[in-house]
């Protein structure tokens, strides 16, 4: 029995259990709690069963899946926007975009695109903040040809000049829209407040940086970072395990260049002082983000924070912020909070919603009140139960398909979680089950300080500050510090627009 069969037999066993549920129909109860259910057990797959250390250095997670005649190959590359040199902001993103669509030494971009399209094969690449990714999804009958193309792309990308010129113009056209949508302004200014303009994630590309990037720099970037020691692979689909491993070995053998070791991701974040920050924008709905310092995901408090945040604002319609801001008051369509543990640096706590200008202040006061309450009193047993179950009883969804299993494990390998805790998923549910109401209250007290909130508002400044006659709330008094008017940035330079310059509005 191979590994694939072992895993699928687990699933088969579960469905066997379900077949026992054909009992005689009882009368339909008036409340759903009165229903009884057959048992259901689920064990997550074990990463060690699928982990393969390839000769060229990288780890691959290999999951055969014969259901459909498709193969998925994903190569994660240890690189990201954080390696962009000063003055070359956008370089990593540039490489990520052009890598799979700029041709190879042997094939022009057009030849490669046409061949891939005829085979109905999807070859894509991108580089984000903390990782790069090259993916190939194709029919298994085309695997040999697809892998040969992938090898060519990984070792000899062409970065064809006309594709580069087009992407440059597309990037600058995209920049010009930076102040058009209040959502975009909110996302960007939130980063500046949360992490500071000294932090790499706030080093946006500009017209000047994009114009200065040359093809030689793309080639140098590729040769520096794209080599097997920087790769992690996730492979799933219609293949034989032994056969695909041999193919992956030759995909990565005899790499034509050596490259560098990627530096660690800088962690010099600096959150702005507490206060109210307003960007004036003429839209009839104000967008609000409330920020507080956050944690990393390996923080011992993190499991309790997950539960606490779920009850506060992470759990959708079962969360307190949604219940009050949306269901009770009708003040927003979406309202909630997120408390993501950062992988490399602490990611901020964030509560967000959007409400018509005049009720922004009132809705903000409700959110702050809920942030305070959850530290003052223990949450209810019912809330605890709902939050725990929402994590524990949805657990199997993370492993719903072989591609997801491979992706989850490769991600853990890449971020170091597998090395630190190889049984992370096996023990995950018991760690969540162990959280108590006291833990929730303790982490709320420790991490949520509404008086320290950084409140970012994008919208009609005057209307928003005026507030609503039915609700005596003064937005300016909700935080410890003064009101800051945040100017829009020039979309092409990202410098704050200077009001004195008549050419800029």
């Amino acid at each position, binding site marked *: 029995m191979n590994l694939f069969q072992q895993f699928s037999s687990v*699933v088969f066993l*579960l*469905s066997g*259990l*379900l077949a026992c*549920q*054909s009992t005689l129909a009882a009368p*339909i109860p008036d*409340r*759903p709690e009165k*229903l009884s*259910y057959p048992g*259901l057990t689920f064990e997550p797959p074990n990463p060690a069963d699928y982990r393969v250390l390839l000769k060229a250095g990288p780890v691959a997670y290999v999951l055969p899946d014969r*259901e*459909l005649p*498709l193969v998925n190959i994903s190569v994660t590359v240890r690189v990201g926007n954080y390696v962009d040199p000063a003055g070359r902001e956008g370089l990593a993103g540039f490489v990520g975009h052009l890598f799979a669509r700029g041709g190879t030494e042997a094939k022009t971009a057009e030849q490669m*695109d046409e061949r891939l*399209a*005829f*085979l*109905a094969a999807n070859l894509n690449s991108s580089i984000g903040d903390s990782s790069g990714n090259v993916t190939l999804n194709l*029919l298994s*009958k085309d695997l040999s040809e697809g892998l040969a193309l992938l090898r060519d792309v990984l070792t000899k990308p062409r970065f064809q000049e006309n594709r580069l010129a*087009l992407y440059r113009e597309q990037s600058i*056209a995209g920049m010009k*829209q930076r*102040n*058009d*949508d209040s959502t975009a302004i909110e996302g960007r200014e939130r980063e500046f407040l949360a992490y500071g303009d000294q932090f790499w994630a706030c080093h946006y590309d500009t017209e000047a940086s994009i114009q200065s990037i040359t093809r030689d720099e793309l080639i140098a970037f590729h040769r520096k970072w794209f080599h097997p020691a920087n790769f992690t692979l996730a492979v799933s689909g219609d293949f034989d395990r032994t056969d695909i491993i041999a193919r992956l070995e030759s995909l990565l053998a005899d790499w034509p260049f050596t490259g560098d070791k990627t530096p660690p991701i800088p962690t010099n974040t600096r959150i702005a002082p507490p206060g109210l920050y307003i960007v004036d924008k003429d839209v*009839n*709905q104000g967008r609000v983000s409330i920020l507080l310092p956050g944690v990393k995901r390996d923080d011992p408090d993190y499991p309790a924070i997950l539960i606490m945040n779920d009850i506060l604002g992470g759990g*959708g*319609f*079962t969360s307190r912020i949604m*219940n009050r801001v949306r*269901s009770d008051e*009708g*003040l*927003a*369509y*979406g309202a909630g909070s997120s408390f993501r543990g950062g992988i490399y640096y602490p990611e901020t706590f964030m509560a967000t919603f*959007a409400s*018509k200008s*005049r009720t922004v202040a009132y809705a903000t006061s409700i959110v702050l009140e809920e942030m305070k309450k959850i530290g003052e009193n223990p949450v209810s047993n019912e809330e605890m139960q*709902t939050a725990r*179950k*929402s994590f524990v*009883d*949805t657990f*199997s*969804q993370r492993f*719903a*398909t072989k*591609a997801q299993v491979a992706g989850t494990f490769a991600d853990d390998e890449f971020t170091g979680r597998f090395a630190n805790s190889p049984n992370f998923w096996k023990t995950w549910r018991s760690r969540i089950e162990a959280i108590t109401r006291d833990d929730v209250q303790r982490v709320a007290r420790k991490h949520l300080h509404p008086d320290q909130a950084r409140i970012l508002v994008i919208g009609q400044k005057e209307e928003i500050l005026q507030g609503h006659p039915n609700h005596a709330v003064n937005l300016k008094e909700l935080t410890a510090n003064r009101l800051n008017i945040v100017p829009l940035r*020039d979309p*092409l*330079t990202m410098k704050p627009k200077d009001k004195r*310059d008549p050419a*800029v*509005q």
Partner: protein
Amino acid sequence: MTYRPFFAGLLALLPGWGTAQQIPVVEKQLPNGFKLLMVERHNEPRVAGGWVAHIGSSNERPGITGIAHLFEHMMFKGTPTLGTKDYPKDVEIIAAQERVRDLMRAEESIMRDQWRRGELADLTKIETRTDRWKELEKEFKKLIDQQREILVKNEFDRIYTTAGASDMNAFTTEDMTGYFINVPANKLELWMWMESERLLRPVFREFYAERDVVFEERRMRTESTPLGKFAEQFNAMFWDAHPYNWPVIGWPSDIPEISKAQADEFYSLYYQPANITLILVGDFKVADAERQVNEYFGRIPRGNRPPPEVTTLEVPQLAEKRMNADAEANPQIDILWRTVPFRHKDGYALNVMEQLLLGRTGRLYKGLELGRQVANTTWANQDSKKWAGAFNIGAEVKDGKTHEEVENALYEELDRLKNEAVPEEELQKVKNNFAAAAFRRLSSDFPILMQLVVNEGLGDWREVNEAFAKVQQVTAADVKRVAASYFTRENRTVARYSRKAGTGAKADPAP
């Protein structure tokens, strides 16, 4: 599970492989009118469950536009036993709320009259309300506070979430309202209980707060986005006679006037069993599920009269229509042509055409972005709705190029489709991608559920299995003929967007 191949004829076209895949649906009919679709798949111990009601904004009328969507929100508010601690009192309060609302509506009629005479500038401003209206609002708030004491907040959601269900949501389009969720395989009976109860005896509590939520949704999607308001008006000018011309979310003056009484009437007409299809995909046994569906959903009475169908047919367009807008957006062109509805025989050639135009080897990218270098971004889409359809193409104008150059370039690409036969290899490329998509769509339960919901909502779930074969039969001559019959000047509506003065980058010359 294994899928059986269909359409062996494809093998000749696609050497080495080439069998598209069917979704093996078991279809049943309940005596009270429900249709039931089931797909057994044992890949994961979960079930994706949903249902689609054949009711969308095109079933509305002026004055209550947006009610189908508002209704979708109300279906999560509970039942007599879910959502309240004291149902008789709850009913009493809801009735009292309605009496106050009737009085408020009378005041709103006065305010509209003042508005028509120019005495009120903005009906949405709280300061413009009459004193009587403000008093009534206070009275209404008191009733809300009373109701809150007996309310069990979002209990419908809490019960599902505590049972390990996830991804609960719903959507409304012009043609349908779809509801869906994902439950652990052992909790399928909970799905039966929850969904049949909310269809059997829904309670529309918190109606007016939810109406405000919907208005915030309108502000978020339409009013405060750069192109939302324009897209709404562009759509309204595109359709002449057909009710597709009003927005799914509703006109801004209609949403705040929809009453609970209208919602009740709407429910009894459009949410009867014969207008609804139940759909289950995942880890269950068809026989067990069918038995439970009969037990739970069989309780719901058949309606008194069948819901009316949309009978208005779009009138032929006689002349080109154009909109010139200044917006906070990059300059762009958007063009719509009247085409065909779901399952029309010409729809498959239009789907092929869309794919000939799209993508990294598509004619728009090659022709406008790389070739003529007049556009930075291009798009194309055949939208086959239930009663009528439209084809859309558009492009963002590159710096230094004009709207006219881009618009002409788009027409040139369409003229090539009309005048020159598509080369066999290019046509085959598109067909290969449709065939591969037939596999890709089968990766997990939820996307299969959604395909069934949408296709059934448009008129017939069987299309999920039949469309792929029909696309494979499209010939180069079909493409030419269909392009020539729809892509005419009098059949199109064109929007040109220019960047609004003062919203650009520093370097931008004033338009």
